[in-house]
């Protein structure tokens, strides 16, 4: 056993103290017929060297292709200091900060995170994270239902320009509690107030607006927010945190600002890592703070009057309120919050704005380069941020497959989730894609489209 310190003498001394003859005796309360003989399906142990060889071979198998997908997970430069400090044992192997006096490091860090994310989203207060951007939309919807004093319908409007996986997660998570998600079709690639007119006069609790939307297109957030508030509908903004360095934050949408903001911290110092772990964020105005799920850290004083930090408002949470808790969430994404806080401290307001601007410029360069190729068109002629939809003259899947063979991850095929768009491909370039990378993609795509026979 690689991590067990017990020597035979330790074992015999301990058994003697217990008054048992062998370790098996300690399991004598378990019915014999339940005891397993052997875990034959588990392979033999590998020491660290052989484990390393195995894992390196598996990782090498996948290689490091050139990535041009966004779709909710964005490749940005991550300063070395972020993970060097985050993987320090004192952060990595620390527990949830329930014993506040032994966890002041984690607690202060979360307080700093709450401050940064609140400011970034233009809101007043934040929690200590949720699982990811998808579950954040679900939790925000449930929170809006609790916070809305008048609406009884539990209806949430969700435009189809919201990330399709976020919509699916919201449905899977919240319909069990009677929440009704009404999809609002947006065939033009953005949501307009005209699409919402039919809901006027009905009891709707909240609307989710994603900015930039799933297609990278910028929504008319002011008009939609004002429309919603005029109709007693709460506004939930699902936003990309990098974009907030240069885009108007949800707290400033319309006249009154959005009521709740949510999203994923992944762009802030968290690597793509095959899909997770990421971290959902949730912020709101002070008047809604008691309806917010998840942990919250507050600053207070100790018995000597010195500044200290502790988890607060815990009476809302599962370990106290049990069946009537705001959510069942317990473990969240603490280590990723640590990384995001360090990342935001290193980038600062100017650095983050530069990342946003550079990513936007690269996507423009990518779109210009690819649309010069015969058979490639831009889908939506509208303001966008760092992501774009291209229309191909043939089915997308085989094109993606061919690009993959050439070591390029060309984009996300939209035809499964949005068949009405036709042969649509969602592409993204961030500050990590150089002009050479973009040229490489353009060359590969050009060759692919020239060589293949057009679909009949």
């Amino acid at each position: 056993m690689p991590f067990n310190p017990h020597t035979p003498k330790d074992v015999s001394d301990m058994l003697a103290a217990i008054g048992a003859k062998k370790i098996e005796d300690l399991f004598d309360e378990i019915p014999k017929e339940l005891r397993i003989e052997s875990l034959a399906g588990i392979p033999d142990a590998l020491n660290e060297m052989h484990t390393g060889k195995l894992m390196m071979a598996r990782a090498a198998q996948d290689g490091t292709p050139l990535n041009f997908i966004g779709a909710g997970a964005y490749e940005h430069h991550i300063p070395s200091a972020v993970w060097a400090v985050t993987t320090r044992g004192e952060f990595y192997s620390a527990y949830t900060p329930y014993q506040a006096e032994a966890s002041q490091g984690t607690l202060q860090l979360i307080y700093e995170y709450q401050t940064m994310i609140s400011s970034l989203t233009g809101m007043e207060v934040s929690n200590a994270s949720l699982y990811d951007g998808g579950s954040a939309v679900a939790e925000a919807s449930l929170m809006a239902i609790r916070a809305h004093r008048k609406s009884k319908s539990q209806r949430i409007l969700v435009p189809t320009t919201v990330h399709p996986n976020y919509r699916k997660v919201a449905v899977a998570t919240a319909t069990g509690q009677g929440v009704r998600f009404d999809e609002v079709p947006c065939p033009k690639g953005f949501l307009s107030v005209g699409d919402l007119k039919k809901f006027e006069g009905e009891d709707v609790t909240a609307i989710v607006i994603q900015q930039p939307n799933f297609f990278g297109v910028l929504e008319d957030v002011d008009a939609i927010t004002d429309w919603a508030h005029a109709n007693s509908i709460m506004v939930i903004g699902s936003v990309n945190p990098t974009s907030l360095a240069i885009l108007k934050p949800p707290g400033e949408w319309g006249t009154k600002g959005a009521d709740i903001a949510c999203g994923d911290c992944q762009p802030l110092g968290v690597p793509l890592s095959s899909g997770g772990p990421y971290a959902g964020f949730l912020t709101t105005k002070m008047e809604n703070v008691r309806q917010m799920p998840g942990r919250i850290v507050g600053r207070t004083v100790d018995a000597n009057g010195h500044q200290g930090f502790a988890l607060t408002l815990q009476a809302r949470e599962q370990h106290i309120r049990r069946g009537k808790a705001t959510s069942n969430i317990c473990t969240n994404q603490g280590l990723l919050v640590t990384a995001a806080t360090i990342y935001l401290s290193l980038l600062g307001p100017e650095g983050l704005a530069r990342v946003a601007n550079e990513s936007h410029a690269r996507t423009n360069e990518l779109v210009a380069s690819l649309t010069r190729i015969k058979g490639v068109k831009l889908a939506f002629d509208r303001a966008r941020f760092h992501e774009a939809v291209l229309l191909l003259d043939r089915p997308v899947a085989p094109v993606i497959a061919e690009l993959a063979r050439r070591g390029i991850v060309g984009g996300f095929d939209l035809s499964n989730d949005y068949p009405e768009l036709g042969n649509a491909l969602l592409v993204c370039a961030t500050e990590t894609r150089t002009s050479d990378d973009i040229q490489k993609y353009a060359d590969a795509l050009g060759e692919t489209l020239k060589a293949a026979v057009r679909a009949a």
Partner: protein
Amino acid sequence: MSNIPADLKYTKSHEWVRTLANGNVEVGITDHAQAALGDLVFVDVPEAGKALKAGDSFAVVESVKAASDVYAPIAGSVVESNSGLGSQPELINSEPYGAGWIMRLKPGSAPAGLLSAAEYQALLDAEG
């Protein structure tokens, strides 16, 4: 030993009930309940006009270690809630039967099934 004024009525869920001169009924939580909860940090009170059945939860009292529902002892409609609790939830700890009242109710029917002070004391003794 918790304080149990003889002139009030009580419920099994640790609410007290005082009949006011105008026939309305004032409701709060007992000394035993506030001691068990510890220092209160927030009270969520109902809006005037809200209709309640006996046993409905009409408020939530929140301390650092617990958040408990407060239940309507009889049916009726809410006349007013104690707005002072918004800034001073600790009134429930210091004056549970006085300034710490939570809600005043216009009863829909005569109060029934409530415990006397002696019966409430017996309940606390049995709980141990």
